[in-house]
């Protein structure tokens, strides 16, 4: 877990780099830090290590999740453009530093062995995100979003902490394997037979409320549209990729290690939550006029897809989650990258225009951006020859391979909902290619362009040869 230590130190280093007069050094430095952490992370490949007195545990699965998180972070850093040229009101060194700190939290969420670490990780990640959400201090919506996020986030973490306490009460352990053993032995499946049953049930539900809040599953998704919409786009991109991946990884880790024996307790509630999430995410996205807000709802719906395979717990679930997270992350970052430059170029009276109409006529003068946007939208919609298609395909395959007929129903719901998804994912493409607009050519910095090329190429590559990475997972 040297990546955690390294990233913490790098975060501090970043804070001090801010005292240098040269702001340009921050982006490459942060990128370098993330890549170093990536290397350190891979160093533990094929080993199972316990860290910090059995508080964290790394194995190949957690390393894969960490890798995806770090890749997403690197891409987000690469498109951050040093947080603009506003000398007075932006604090790039702090933003980069906080970003690195939050990644530490995210990594703790995917490697936790003790519920303490889950809690600490979530808190590190969340507090960092509260700050970054409100970083656009002069924008009222950003402030509102930060406060909302903070209030609801602390509410959710409080609930989760209560859940952890209840689980401890029922099992006497914070260690996830220890909990798993206790749950196995104590025959807690039947609430009536064991006095600890209700406590355990309450604990599990409350912990998952906290986690589901983080991955914005309905009905705990209410913060998502408002916060995603209000936060600066670059941090929205970070939230919808890194935070989501970490949240799903944590949920999966906890479910698959601690509570598989009591599937009967939490299976049904989570199945309904999944269906509700898919429904709300996709249906509500249809009506949105703002591209950014649409992406927020889309991120809710993707949480739903991810939950399917988490619940289906087939032997291929590991690789399906990883593949989906990766495909979703790179496509989302592409989309936000295009949104950022376009909305700034279209800004009206200083405020970036984030509606679909801002994309009108994008293809005329910016064919490259339009192409990137198209590929990412197709991938999010799950059209073949993009990574997103195989992501969805693997997940639906998992659902169908589960013996329970309930999962076939979910898969059908999910497929129906993904057809609804096509409707709103094609809106930006239509705007870019078919509508008329007077957008001038947008100049992109080399690193920005390179990032877009990488994400787009990766999306297509994984759509053609998914086994390239699926074999690693």
């Amino acid at each position, binding site marked *: 877990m040297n990546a955690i230590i390294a990233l913490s130190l790098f975060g*501090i280093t970043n804070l001090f780099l801010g005292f240098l007069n040269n702001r340009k050094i921050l982006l490459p430095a942060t990128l370098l830090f993330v890549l170093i952490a990536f290397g350190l992370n891979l160093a533990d490949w094929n080993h199972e290590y316990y860290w910090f007195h059995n508080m964290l545990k790394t194995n190949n699965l957690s390393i894969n999740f960490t890798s995806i998180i770090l890749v997403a972070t690197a891409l987000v850093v690469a498109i951050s453009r040093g947080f603009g040229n506003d000398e007075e009101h932006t604090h790039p060194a702090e933003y980069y530093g906080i970003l690195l700190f939050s990644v530490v939290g995210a990594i703790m969420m995917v490697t936790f062995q003790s519920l303490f670490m889950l809690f600490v990780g979530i808190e590190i990640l969340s507090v960092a995100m509260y700050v970054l959400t409100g970083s656009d201090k002069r924008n009222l919506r950003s402030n509102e979003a930060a406060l909302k996020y903070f209030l609801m986030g602390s509410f959710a973490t409080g609930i989760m902490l209560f859940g952890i306490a209840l689980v401890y009460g029922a099992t006497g352990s914070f260690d996830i394997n220890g909990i798993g053993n206790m749950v196995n032995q104590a025959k807690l499946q039947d609430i009536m037979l064991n*006095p600890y049953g209700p406590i355990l049930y309450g604990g599990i539900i409350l912990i998952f409320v906290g986690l589901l809040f983080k991955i914005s599953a309905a009905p705990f998704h209410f913060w998502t549209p408002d916060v995603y919409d209000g936060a600066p786009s670059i941090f929205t991109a970070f939230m919808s990729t890194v935070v989501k991946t970490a949240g799903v990884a944590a949920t999966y880790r906890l479910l698959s290690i601690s509570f598989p024996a009591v599937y009967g307790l939490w299976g049904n509630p989570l199945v309904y939550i999944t269906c509700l999430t898919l429904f709300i995410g996709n249906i509500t996205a249809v009506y949105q006029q703002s591209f950014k807000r649409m992406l927020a709802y889309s991120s809710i719906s993707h949480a739903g897809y991810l939950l399917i395979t988490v619940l289906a717990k087939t032997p291929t679930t590991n690789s399906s989650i990883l593949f989906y997270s990766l495909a979703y992350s790179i496509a989302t970052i592409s989309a936000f990258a295009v949104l950022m430059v376009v909305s700034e170029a279209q800004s009206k009276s200083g405020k970036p225009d984030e509606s679909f109409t801002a994309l009108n006529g994008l293809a005329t003068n910016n064919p490259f951006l339009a192409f990137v946007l198209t590929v990412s939208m197709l991938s999010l919609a799950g059209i073949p020859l993009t990574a997103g298609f195989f992501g969805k395909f693997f997940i639906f395959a998992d659902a169908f391979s589960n013996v329970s007929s309930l999962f076939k129903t979910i898969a059908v719901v999910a497929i129906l909902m993904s057809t609804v998804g096509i409707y709103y994912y094609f809106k930006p493409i239509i705007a870019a290619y078919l509508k008329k607009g007077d957008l001038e050519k947008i100049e992109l910095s080399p690193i920005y362009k390179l990032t877009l090329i990488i994400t787009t190429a990766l999306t297509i590559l994984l759509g053609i040869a998914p086994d390239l990475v699926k074999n690693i997972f």
Partner: protein
Amino acid sequence: MNYQPSDYLPIIVQIGAALAFIVLTMVATHWLGPKRHSKAKDDVFECGIESVGNARTPISVKYFLVAILFVLFDVEIIFMYPWAVNFKTLGWDGFLEMIVFMSLLLAGFIYVLKKGVLDWEK
């Protein structure tokens, strides 16, 4: 040791007693105490100079900043106490860990200084 939920009963009794005592005393004082209102008595400050303006005036954010920083560093001190108590048993490992902890704290302090947070005039 295997606790049953019923073993926690004393705690509930304790909580109940504590709450009941507070509620009881508050209600009792309201009932029992004599009430005499006058303008001077209802004033914000019963003695001294007369108050001017609204109490909810905006205060410079620097106050809050300093207050938060104070709380932050003050709380960190709490970690020192258990360490000091167990100084010998923790040995060199504990010492090194505390040095790491303190240097991180120091780094934060230097950062705060360099940011000019404590520079009141700025």
